């Protein structure tokens, strides 16, 4: 087996283990939710929106200065 095959196998094992871990965590969450529906943790808070707001710059500039050019 080549080094590349070894690497691919290792990556497959890691991703398989990660998927299994996520499935177990989700299973635990569902069991807890079923056993104690009154005390379920809330969904995680949303990610920060800095990148989203910065990405709007082009549209904001076009709205402001695009309109000026038309008038």
């Amino acid at each position, binding site marked *: 087996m080549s080094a590349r095959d070894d690497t691919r196998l290792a990556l497959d094992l890691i991703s398989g283990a990660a998927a299994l871990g996520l499935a177990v965590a989700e299973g635990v969450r569902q069991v807890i939710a079923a056993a104690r529906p009154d*005390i379920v*943790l809330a969904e995680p808070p949303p990610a*920060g929106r800095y990148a989203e*707001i910065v990405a709007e710059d082009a549209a904001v*500039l076009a709205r402001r200065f695009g309109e000026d050019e038309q008038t």
Partner: protein
Amino acid sequence: MGALLIITTGCASRLDASIAAVNGAQAFLVHANDTLAASHRSARDTAVAAAPDEPAARRLLAEVHARYLRAWQAYDAARFAWLGTAASVRAAQAIELAGGDHEPRAVSLALLELGAAYEAFRAAALALAVKAPVLP
């Protein structure tokens, strides 16, 4: 923030109280996210409206974004602290469900870290004159 710990020590079920505290902190973070985003967009729109031309607007936009970056970084740090606290609560729940004894200090410490991260976010938001909600 102190109340986060106090309610986890005086209740019949410390874990239930921890979950209530974590859920409360989640609501504050959701509100803080909306408040900061609204303030950031408002500052950006004001800057662009005041700029005489596009190069000036780009300069002002860069200044606005640089001013808000620290608050967003502090928000993300508080969010990651929330995720860590939620994970430790979930682990404690799983141990309790399996009939074992979990270490309550682990959850308390995670709550303490969450409180500290949230306070750091609030300080960064206050530096921008953004009124972030006070964690109980």
